[in-house]
């Protein structure tokens, strides 16, 4: 058992855990910060991504005992940080993911959102390729990444006052062009 002083989401905690536990285990099962997910437990999927001093790292490969002296940010830390910085509600990245439908099962998303947050902190106006590159360690099985990329582009556009390449997703609007079947369609079909 080892008592580690961990700085997580702005607070410092003394946490006792077996010495061979990873940061992910301590966050989830000792501190109750279950927002960090586990999809493989060996560095292959990115679900456990947290920020250390602002950089995305994998908590499943980080020993908790070695996570002292750095600032750890988990997904639970974004909302309070946003509020204490005087912002209204959720972090704009979280909000954009929500608005763009980027969250399907949501399991990859805490990690994904933290990777996106870290990217935008470093580079507020990344290109689409830079966005894709920054997310390339976070596997998502649901979305095909399209709405995730759109969400980040929306967050960028809103922060910079630009226009997202995709129409913006205000609730109640429908930016998709939907086509309808029509009687003419059926006339084209040869009689069977």
């Amino acid at each position, binding site marked *: 058992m080892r008592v580690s002083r961990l700085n997580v989401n702005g607070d410092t905690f003394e946490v006792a855990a077996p010495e061979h536990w990873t940061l992910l285990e301590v966050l989830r099962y000792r501190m109750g910060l279950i927002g960090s997910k586990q999809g493989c437990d060996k560095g292959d999927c990115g679900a456990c991504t947290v920020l250390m001093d602002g950089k995305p790292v994998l908590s499943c490969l980080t020993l908790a005992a070695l996570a002292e002296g750095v600032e750890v940010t988990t997904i639970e830390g974004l909302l309070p940080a946003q509020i204490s910085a005087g912002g209204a509600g959720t972090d704009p990245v979280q909000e954009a993911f929500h608005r763009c439908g980027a969250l399907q099962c949501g399991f990859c998303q805490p990690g994904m959102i933290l990777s996106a947050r870290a990217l935008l902190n470093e580079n507020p106006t990344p290109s689409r390729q830079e966005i894709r590159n920054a997310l390339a360690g976070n596997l998502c099985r649901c979305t095909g990444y399209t709405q995730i990329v759109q969400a980040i582009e929306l967050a960028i556009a809103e922060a910079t006052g630009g226009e997202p390449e995709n129409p913006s997703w205000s609730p109640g609007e429908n930016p998709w062009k939907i086509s309808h*079947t029509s009687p003419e369609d059926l006339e084209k079909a040869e009689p069977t």
Partner: protein
Amino acid sequence: MAARDNHGTDAPWKEGFQVVGRAHPKIDGLAKATGQAIYTDDIQLPGMLHVKMLRSPHPHARIIEIDVHQALELEGVHAVLTGADLPKKYGVIPWTPDENALATEKVRFTGDEVCAIAAIDEDTANAALKLLEVKYEQLHAFLDPFDALERSEPQIHDEIRGKEVRGNVSKNVKLEFGDVEAGLEAADAVVDDNYFFHGTTHTAIEPHCAVAQYSPHGVLTVWSSTQITHYVQRALAHVLEIPEAKIRVIQPCLGGAFGGKSDPFALEFVVAKLAMITGRPVKCLWTREEVFYAHRGRHPMHLHYRTGARKDGRLTAVDAKILIDGGSYSSFGLITTYYSGQLLTGPYDFPAYRFDSTRVFTNKPPCGPKRGHGSVQPRFAFEVQLDQIAEKLGIDPIELRRKNFQGEHTETVNGQRITSNGFLRCLDEVERASSWKERRVKLPRGRGLGVAGSMYISGTNYAVYPNAMPQAGVQLQLDRSGLVTVFTGGNDIGQGSNSVARIIVAEELGLDPEDVRVVAADTDLCPVDLGAYSSRVTFMVGNALIDACRKVRKQIVQAVAEDWGVPTARVWMGLGEVFDLEDRERTLSTREAFHLTEERFDTLGATGSYNTPELGGDYRGGTIGASPAYSFTAHVVEVDVDEETGRITVENCWIAHDCGRALNPMLVAGQMEGSAYMGIAEALLESHDVNRFGLHAGPSLLDYRIPTSVDTPELHALIVESLDPEGPYGAKEAGEGPLHPSVPAISNAVFDACGIRLKQLPFTPGAVLTALRAKTGEPAPVRA
């Protein structure tokens, strides 16, 4: 109203749709985005024990002896289970119960569960696993389905449900409709070819997990990452031999499923039994490796097709023979075997069709239903074959598909009823968006466009266990606060079914969507829904919700009309208010209207349900594959082939999908993109293999390579609506259909790019180079 009533495709209120048809963020989106959503492994209960499982190191062996003594003696170990503790066999299909939670006499694949240990923590359980001693007698392992077909000894299963198994054949289905031989004879061109679809797996990012608690009154609660709460409850009752009424199954937030969580799994029985034995809460979280063993993924299929066509492109007959590699257990295999033939009969019309599908057992992780269950593989073969016909006849591949379109409101050759059908519009859309006509001929060598189409079910009228009760039930509670709570057994597996429920109720009762909450997938609280499979939830739960809403709506309108002294036709509900249509000044908040109604009638609430109409062909198996509606899809894929490396890059994928009506286009687009992504991944990267030792070739997310953001092309969702007469407001499915065409469309695009036909999956760069060489006659490089 009754379970089979149709509600029409119109908006419930005269002013048109208020909520439906627009983008609405998901009901649980912010909870997920902020990390607050609770998944199964997020549940921690006081005094909880942790389970680890011992698995078979052999692909096929008889268990001679299990010695658990040493393990039991280890400090911190509370209980050890073996097959003898859970002897009852189960299976998701009641006709084929061939699984035991823990192996009883035999193990049938490397990774099959043998023992389970509950201890104070996972480390202790792991340490105890190493103290277990199991003696096996190894048996011949069937790794090749042809071997399993030819050799009947040793049998992987001797008998299932008292019926002898014929050799290692899990299921055989032979059906013929029309005169196939005559059709082929009448054809001007016949293409006769073989195809292979490899195994792939779901790879939801959340590994399977289950938690159980047993109360002093004998009530068992199981939280599980399942997509079939109701079936899990039934299976638990059957295996544990306790009444269903004593079992509560809850599906917490689910981290993806894709069909991979639609069987009852060993861990659910094991945690339940251990909770009962120890009196303590018990959790089992499978490692990623164990999830690969649980599998239930795409069946590898060896497919042989003969298709005939006349000069004008019209198909005359299709003849299919399919060998299906089922892995070690039945799972949904009975259905898979039917689906492999039954679901091919649209969107094209052909007068004669025959299929002969055989599923065999092999000593590999069991296959089951993966997104597009049973029909992605034949669709691949057939759509490539259609391109071969187009090539032979010199017809544009899109044109060929148009010519054979089956039409709306028709019946397929195998007797399935087709209602709405937007396939032609799908073809138009992908043709237009990809600039097919202008670009296809002009693309440089190495670049190509390919098309494919498909059809998929939107729910099935085959309930997994035969019964005449509704397939979907819901309940509404209208609170005095103005809040409406929906109770539905439907499983939200990330596809957004709870969000769909919110939208429908908000539309029906004129509410702000925020005023609708959804409680789902808890067998104590929610009316039965059969689960999230066969793309049935939106269609069936959606209809059940409309049914329930209309009951309360009638009461509300009547109460308000009486209060205002106006005819009911003048009362209109929308966006949180109730209006007088002729006197817009007169309004009530929904909350006030609820009060009025409660005063006038009683506590407010309603149930609603849905059942499919009688469907299907009049022959054995004719109801399998019968759906109240079918969705249709067309893809055009643009590829770039590097002829030096053999690597195929998908540059663009245009996905046009007829979803009936897009209740929430944002979710529909998300399903379409996610489906296409998954299909492309199967075609190019993924392969669920067992190696020559009978061992999973790489049970990790490093070796089973699902695409990252830089491996995924630009996906363009083109939504098509056909307004199905029986779907909720005309909606059909969107979660599975759009996967199908991506695989054959890539093959067809590669042909366009460089003239090679890829008929064996996956399309590895090595296979592409081999095919290119075969075409030019260039010899393979000699390995010095």
